[in-house]
């Protein structure tokens, strides 16, 4: 079996937003340019028909695409809008209704896993377990920076999962938690704004060393940096490095991974996130689910330059195949 590869269509958001590619064309590119098999979708971003209730014809067309392009649904990404109304937070039951709605949609579209957004409360996931079982779709809480594998939020969630003894709740690892240094493109942008390369390098070294934001800002101040350097230091404020080895604690509960990345260079290396050690750990613990590439570098392209999302994803897959072997 081994690790399987896919693409989160979050990666293609700009091509879709600007109307350059529709959903079918993106499935085509995934199969025929990237060479990937798994499809991860945010249905509120690129609806299959309409969200949350596609027609039967929409669903049939979706499966026809899967067949035509030899792809398969992996994980569907869900949101719980607990601030749906201006003046109040939705009750637990209303939030569970939203979860049930998404579990049902995932089931209709053939997704085996539902991405649960990090700040969703464990009580909501727990109360949704009967729906997950009914629809045969697993819920995975996404461990996403600034959360870490050791955060109290994660630990308490996992206590709930273990206590319930259900196979329908688990974890999704977002590789952003293994970020080691600012993406190359972020640094290039700062250089263009006149940042001092020595200060940037000092910041990058301190990032890799897992230093807190105050420490990074201290470097900027000491070395006489300005706004551009401060921007780079601040971009790191929400980063918290997780030790890849901590994944072993939850080995049998990891049901999906997001191969988060910001910038793939010409040699197909991610310029800021550690992939080598996490993938070694995943192989070692026998993980045989999907890693779906999740490109999030769109906002690093400023001025006239535009990202080539499909090319970035293609490079990411070259790296992934190299590392998985």
């Amino acid at each position: 079996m081994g690790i399987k590869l896919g693409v989160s269509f979050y990666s293609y958001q700009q091509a879709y937003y600007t109307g350059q590619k529709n959903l079918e064309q993106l499935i085509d590119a995934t199969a025929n340019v990237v060479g990937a098999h798994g499809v991860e979708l945010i249905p509120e971003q690129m609806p299959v028909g309409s969200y949350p209730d596609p027609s039967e014809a929409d669903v049939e067309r979706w499966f026809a695409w899967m067949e035509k392009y030899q792809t398969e649904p992996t994980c569907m990404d869900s949101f719980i809008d607990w601030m749906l109304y201006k003046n109040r937070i939705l009750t637990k039951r209303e939030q569970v209704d939203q979860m049930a709605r998404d579990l049902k949609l995932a089931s209709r579209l053939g997704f085996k896993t539902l991405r649960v957004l990090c700040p969703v409360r464990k009580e909501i996931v727990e109360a949704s377990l009967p729906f997950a079982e009914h629809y045969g779709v697993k819920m995975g809480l996404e461990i996403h920076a600034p959360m870490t594998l050791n955060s109290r939020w994660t630990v308490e969630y996992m206590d709930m999962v273990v206590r319930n003894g259900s196979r329908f709740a688990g974890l999704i690892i977002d590789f952003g938690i293994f970020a080691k240094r600012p993406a190359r493109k972020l640094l290039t942008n700062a250089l263009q704004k006149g940042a001092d390369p020595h200060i940037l390098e000092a910041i990058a070294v301190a990032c890799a060393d897992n230093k807190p934001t105050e420490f990074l800002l201290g470097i900027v101040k000491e070395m006489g940096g300005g706004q551009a350097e401060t921007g780079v230091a601040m971009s790191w404020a929400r980063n918290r490095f997780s030790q890849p080895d901590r994944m072993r604690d939850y080995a049998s509960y990891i049901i999906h991974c997001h191969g988060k990345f910001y910038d793939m260079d010409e040699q197909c290396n991610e310029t800021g996130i550690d992939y080598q050690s996490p993938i070694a750990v995943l192989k070692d613990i026998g993980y045989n689910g999907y890693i779906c590439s999740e490109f999030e570098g769109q906002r690093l392209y400023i001025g006239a330059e535009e990202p080539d999302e499909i090319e970035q994803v293609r490079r990411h897959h070259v790296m992934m195949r190299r590392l998985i072997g």
Partner: protein
Amino acid sequence: MYEKHMLARDDIQSVVENGVGTGFIVKLKIPYYRGVCLSLVEDIQVRFNDRLFTRDQLTFSVSGETFTFKEMETQTTFRWEFGEKATVFVPLPGGIPLGMHRIEVTVSIRISYMGGTRPFTVVLENVSPMGG
């Protein structure tokens, strides 16, 4: 990416009814990476040169239906989809005059996982909808 793509110059148009300019529309894409139901579109403001138009003065249209912002507070069926253009009508008697104008639009979306409302502003300078 929203700065560049959420509002195209061609999507600012005067509205003329019975030969009289009543205002203008801006066709906006959502400055957020997914679509949302309309109750989450908490606020839109449009600044035309020095004049500010607030939510009570505007209407919002999507899927062929037009809503006031008060109505949108409970609107969870209709959605502003990702990449879809919504039409905001701004009442400006006479429509947009000849000449160059500055248009600034702020869209505030309520995002639960951010614990509140995130405003996003786009500015277009030298807008001249009457051809140019």
